[in-house]
């Protein structure tokens, strides 16, 4: 399908960055959408491409957030160096968490990621000298550009937008590569993937590593956005939100994640000002998606696109139609 082709997806990403300022009044909100877009795409790489449901994404997000807080408030390291550091630390921790979790499969794998999520939360809570405990780390500065700090939300939005486009392009490249195609094979049939020679564990760990790098990178951007590295960013609840966004968006393409993140954040923003119990409505949305829209919002977009182009998904082919492969019969 055209809309799932990489160049089209990249076009959508660029368009999103350019269009958001026209539709949103808050630069903070727009930046948050882009940041979570990256985070959710990284979660999608695990769930949609590799078939791994990770409850540990908050660990990586919090890691990036704390790294930004610690490095920017206590050392003179510039943002341009701090961001790659966040990605590297995210890779290391994700390799560790992923490497241990994938030793088990199915439910036990999910439980392990959940357990790690709790573990890291309490680590952050306990080592308050480093993390600020309950208060988090305050006064995280925004990056400097041409000697001026990006205080205005929209100028920081531009900064995040550039990062977003670059990260997304890299992730599109990864999903198109031999590596990405092997991940899909692992998701489709793990036993066969191993039988044709792929060390499946190594591929899963590598997927975790990339996911961790991107998530921590985005976590660092987030800390600079809100000026705080809060304890809540490493909470289990963050992992949960990321997964909910991933599932609402759908997992058949990377841009689906941007859609999921935008939908969740915009809905939370609109509804919470109208009704304090808005999470109830979110629950309803999740029920609807789980029951009727298993391919998420992007699945809906795919359907509409197919209708518009009359390019309907081809009907099931009768096996007898295919069985008449006369050339197959031995002479």
């Amino acid at each position, binding site marked *: 399908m055209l809309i799932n082709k990489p160049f089209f997806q990249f076009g959508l990403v660029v368009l999103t960055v350019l269009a958001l300022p026209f539709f949103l009044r808050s630069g903070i909100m727009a930046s948050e959408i882009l940041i979570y877009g990256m985070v959710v795409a990284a979660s999608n790489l695990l769930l949609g491409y590799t078939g791994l449901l990770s409850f540990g994404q908050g660990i990586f997000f919090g890691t990036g957030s704390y790294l930004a807080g610690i490095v920017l408030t206590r050392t003179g390291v510039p943002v341009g160096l701090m961001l790659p550091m966040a990605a590297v630390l995210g890779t290391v921790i994700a390799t560790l968490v992923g490497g241990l979790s994938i030793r088990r499969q199915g439910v036990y794998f999910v439980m392990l990621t959940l357990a790690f999520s709790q573990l890291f939360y309490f680590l952050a809570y306990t080592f308050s000298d480093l993390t600020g405990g309950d208060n988090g780390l305050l006064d995280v500065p925004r990056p400097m550009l041409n000697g001026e700090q990006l205080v205005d939300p929209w100028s920081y939005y531009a900064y995040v937008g550039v990062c977003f486009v670059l990260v997304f392009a890299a992730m599109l*490249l*990864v999903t*198109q*590569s*031999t*590596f*990405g*195609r*092997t991940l*899909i*094979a692992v998701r*489709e*049939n793990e*036993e*066969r*993937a*191993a*039988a*044709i*020679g*792929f*060390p*499946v564990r*190594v*591929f899963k760990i*590598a997927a975790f590593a*990339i996911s961790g790098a991107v998530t921590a990178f985005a976590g660092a951007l987030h800390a600079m956005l809100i000026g705080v590295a809060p304890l809540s960013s490493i909470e289990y609840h963050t992992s949960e939100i990321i997964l909910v966004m991933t599932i609402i968006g759908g997992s058949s393409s990377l841009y689906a994640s941007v859609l999921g993140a935008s939908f969740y954040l915009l809905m939370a923003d609109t509804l919470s000002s109208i009704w304090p119990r808005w999470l109830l409505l979110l629950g309803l949305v999740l029920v609807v998606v789980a029951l009727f829209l298993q391919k998420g919002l992007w699945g809906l977009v795919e359907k509409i696109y197919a209708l518009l182009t009359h390019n309907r998904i081809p009907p*099931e*082919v009768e*096996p*007898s139609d*295919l*069985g008449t*492969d006369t*050339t*197959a*019969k*031995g002479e």
Partner: protein
Amino acid sequence: MTQTASTTDALVTKGLGVSYNKFVALADVDLNIRENSVHSIIGPNGAGKTTLFHALTGRVRPSSGKITLGGRDITNLSDNERVRRGIARSFQVTSLFPDLSVHENLRLAAQGRTPWQALAMWRRAESNHEAMATVDEMLARLSLTRVATRAAGELAHGQQRRLEVGMAMAARPRVILMDEPTSGMGIDDIETMKDLIQGLASDHTVLFIEHNMGIVMNISDTVTVLRLGRKLVEGPPAMVRDDPEVKKAYLGNMITGDIA
């Protein structure tokens, strides 16, 4: 039968045994699979055929004995490491990547021979020209070129079974292990499969488990009969068919099947 099966052994087991706790599934099995021969394993249910198969593919660790491939010990290698050494397998219950195209199924199988290369996150899958050439060759050989872009799960059963074997061939292995290649096939498809397996012996060594005695007696160079986890008889099809011990082992499940 293959005309010129050589005298060197491709795959050898010595005193191979597998036990699950106290249950001995396989004991003391010595096998010498000659290079470029077609070797079949038969035996009544519970004879240990599948266990032997798993031990050879690396899915089950042997509790005793040794397996060597071309003289090199592979007893302690994992299944995916054995693929790199030249052992490929097909499954009894068709195990493909159902949502991926036939072409992509074969490309993955061809890439599996050099799996570390596939970790390259910047390289396009299509840039592996060797794998792409293998895919085209396999498609032609399996008569699947016409359906190359179809999802594997949409194919007819016979085509899926051929692709199943093709997945093993695409790794260009020295030894191909097949678990009941004709399982669930119709008569026409069985003939095609028979020709396919016979043709494999020119490039590969073939070892397969099979219940269809017609095929076993027709195309095997050597037949090994297992019973209760041990080797009962081994030899050319004609000899095995007339062996009184074998007839007794099958107890009424008469071995029919003509020898061509």
